[in-house]
């Protein structure tokens, strides 16, 4: 079935015992019969012109690899079972052979020859052991990677070598750990040469001053000079910068020096109001509030970092956690403790107060002439406000002649004809009427944030919805609307702000020691949030139990060459302030120490004079 011609040769195999292979030369015409020693009952063959081989399928699970140039060179290959092999195909690229069996089941055997070309192994056992087997399964067919393995065992205690070989395309880079010599301390920009390299310590708490301390090998009574007399001032609040390699870690000013006679050294402490190198990055700085800056939303740039514990039975990585402790606090809730106040809350509630709403019905009617006045019947339970239009006769006019009286407000009682003897004629009366109902009150209930137990806060609350209405005043008819307010959203904002300050995992804390390499590698900064991964109980310190915890203190030590991270679940002053700012979108610089939402403004009272009041007897304005 398969290809059996290779250039000038044609190959034929025999189904005999032993099997034979016959190489026929086409030009000149000749042939040679070769016995396939150790093989019998050849069924099929395939020519591999790439390897210059002929593969012959035989009995007993054998495949004869026959050299085309010299068919007497034969190599035995075996399938995984001792069966009569039948049809054969060849993968010339990877030197694999695929062979079917004569069985009734659909079986394909694969003989992979590629390994011989690319795999170098050096397996050594230095001591003869009984029944010891090194099982090695190396199986990849489509890679060109060369893999060198040197596995050695020295003793008899390990009976099985389990090998898990993996490889990555990325190159493996040697890592050199940070050394003490990588610490650089500068004063006023000049590197100090007399720093005791195991004395440097950087301490950065989140809400107070940062400090750097180190010792100098100087005469205790000559602090501004090195031991060889070179000037190096440290007594004038000089600027100290500390680097690890090229990474700036601290900038501050010298605030303390302590001379130690018996050791002839000087201990120096520098402090900084803040340590911008290890604080979270913001734009602009959160400490600029005194200058009137207004923060933008989302300026906080903390990050969450998963710090790994070492994997069991593996070599410690520079970037693994060296040591750590975790303290979890799981206080009882009110219900669990059967107490009234445990001082532990997981949520905030606020009474939203009462909504009070004015209900007023208003309208206008018209009365034509005296006949209309005679027929007018006021509405029961309504207030009425009368405005007249009339013509005054000349004798009573204030101007000596007939006078038009237009939209004159005469009060809440309608005139009668006898009272209006001064009028020449009454054109009409405009009647403004209204009814004021009882104020409608609705309880707004409570607003909750988080989960029980709730801490209740008390803030201005409630809502008053006033309505437009007429009001009779001494000098006229007015339209007024009382002061209104709505504190519902304000109360909710306050609850949110209190919730932001709430420590949901009160007392949870953790302390982690990592190498300085890891500290710089992860670019750890203040308030970054840390998870601990690779825990034996999967996920126990990741996104649960208060994790990720926020870094509140960073301590770097050249003595131990480690970075200590102190973390807890509380919010720093800065963090709480920024959170509140982000929530309410605005920030008032003058109120930097109080990050409550601004109280909602009331809507001022509205009042407008509609008509001037007159005395109907004197036809004069009433004031």
């Amino acid at each position, binding site marked *: *079935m398969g290809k059996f*011609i290779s250039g000038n040769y044609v190959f034929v195999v025999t189904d005999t015992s032993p099997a034979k292979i*016959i190489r*026929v030369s086409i030009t000149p015409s000749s042939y040679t019969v070769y016995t396939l020693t150790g093989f019998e009952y050849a069924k099929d063959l395939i020519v591999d012109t790439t390897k210059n081989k002929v593969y012959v399928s035989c009995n007993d699970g054998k495949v004869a690899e026959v050299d085309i140039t010299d068919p007497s060179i034969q190599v035995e290959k075996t399938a995984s079972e001792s069966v009569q092999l039948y*049809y054969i195909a060849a993968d010339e690229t990877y030197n694999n052979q*695929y062979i*079917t069996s004569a069985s009734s089941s*659909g079986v394909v055997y*694969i003989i992979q020859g590629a390994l011989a070309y690319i795999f170098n192994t050096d397996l050594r056992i230095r001591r003869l052991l009984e029944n010891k087997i090194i099982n090695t399964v190396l199986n990849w067919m489509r890679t060109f990677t060369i893999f060198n393995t040197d596995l050695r065992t020295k003793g008899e205690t390990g009976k099985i070598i389990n090998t898990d070989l993996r490889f990555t395309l990325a190159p493996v880079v040697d890592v050199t750990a940070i050394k003490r010599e990588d610490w650089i301390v500068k004063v006023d920009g000049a590197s100090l040469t007399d720093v005791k390299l195991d004395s440097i310590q950087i301490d950065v708490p989140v809400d107070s001053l940062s400090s750097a301390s180190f010792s100098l090998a100087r005469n205790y009574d000559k602090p501004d000079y090195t031991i060889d007399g070179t000037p190096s001032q440290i007594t004038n609040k000089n600027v100290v910068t500390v680097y690890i390699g090229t990474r700036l870690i601290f900038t501050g000013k010298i605030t303390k020096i302590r001379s130690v006679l018996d050791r002839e050294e000087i201990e120096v402490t520098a402090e900084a109001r803040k340590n911008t190198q290890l604080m979270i990055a913001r734009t602009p700085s959160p400490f600029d509030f005194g200058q009137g800056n207004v923060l933008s939303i989302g300026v906080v740039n903390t990050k969450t970092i998963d710090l790994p514990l070492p994997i069991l039975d593996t070599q410690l990585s520079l970037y693994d956690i060296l040591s750590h402790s975790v303290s979890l606090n799981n206080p009882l809730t009110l219900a669990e403790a059967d107490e009234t106040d445990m001082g532990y809350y997981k949520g905030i509630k606020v009474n939203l107060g009462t909504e009070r709403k004015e209900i007023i019905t208003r309208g206008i009617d018209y009365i034509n002439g005296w006949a209309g006045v005679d027929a007018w019947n006021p509405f029961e339970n309504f207030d009425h406000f009368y405005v007249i239009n009339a013509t005054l006769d000349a004798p009573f006019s204030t101007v000596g002649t007939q006078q038009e009286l237009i939209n004159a407000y005469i009060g809440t009682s309608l005139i009668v004809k006898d009272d209006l003897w001064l009028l020449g004629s009454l054109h009409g009366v405009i009647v403004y009427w209204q009814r004021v109902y009882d104020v409608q009150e609705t309880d707004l209930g409570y607003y909750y944030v988080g989960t029980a137990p709730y801490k209740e806060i008390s803030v201005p609350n409630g809502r008053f919805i006033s309505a437009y209405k007429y009001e009779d005043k001494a000098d006229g008819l007015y339209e007024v609307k009382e002061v209104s307010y709505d504190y519902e959203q304000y109360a909710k904002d306050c609850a949110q702000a209190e919730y932001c300050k709430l420590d949901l995992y009160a007392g949870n804390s953790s302390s982690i020691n990592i190498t300085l390499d890891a500290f710089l590698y992860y670019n750890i900064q203040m308030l970054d949030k840390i998870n601990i991964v690779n825990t034996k109980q999967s996920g126990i310190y990741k996104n649960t139990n208060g994790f990720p915890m926020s870094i509140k203190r960073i301590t770097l030590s050249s003595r131990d060459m480690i970075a200590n991270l102190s973390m807890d679940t509380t919010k720093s002053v800065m963090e709480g302030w920024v959170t509140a700012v982000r929530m309410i979108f605005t920030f008032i610089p003058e109120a930097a120490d109080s990050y409550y939402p601004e109280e909602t403004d009331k809507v001022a009272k509205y009042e407008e004079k509609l008509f001037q009041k007159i005395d109907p007897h004197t036809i004069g304005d009433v004031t």
Partner: protein
Amino acid sequence: MESKHTFSLTECTAIYKESTYLWVAFNVSGGICHLYKLDAYDLTNLFFDISVTATKITGIIDTGSYIYCSLDDVTNIGIRISKTNPLVDYTYIPIPAGITEEAVGVTYDATKLYFLTPGLISGTNAKVVVFTLSSLAYSETVTLTSITDARKIDRNTSPITVLYITSLNDPPTLTAAYKIITWTITSGSLT
């Protein structure tokens, strides 16, 4: 390293490696065979399962765009199957008049397709049945005089096409056949 892959179908009757694929034919009772197109480096990865109406698929070759199979069947001598769209693009090649045996092998050159019949029936010699490669039109039949029990066919194409046929005689016989104007056939025992 050796490995074994067992399929759910019965008896492999032909196998062919093409590019990164492995084509495996299975003999299934009921007159339907199955031809699998597999990932040659992961035989669990089946690309196509092609049903072929025949008693058995006896040979597979690859001409570029198509796979050609010789068939043990009373109706068709072979089938042409698209390598990339085999479930839709396939053409059966009917047994021409005068051919009484099934095909046991197949080969091709630039213009022709050659099926080999074995000469197993008493009084019948092995034959090469020739078709035009592009149209699959029947071209001619070449009788391999005195050759019986032929099993395999292969060819050299330079300078002209020469077909080589081996038989299962004891000793085996190798036959060469080529055509300039008419067919020339030579054979001999390989003792």
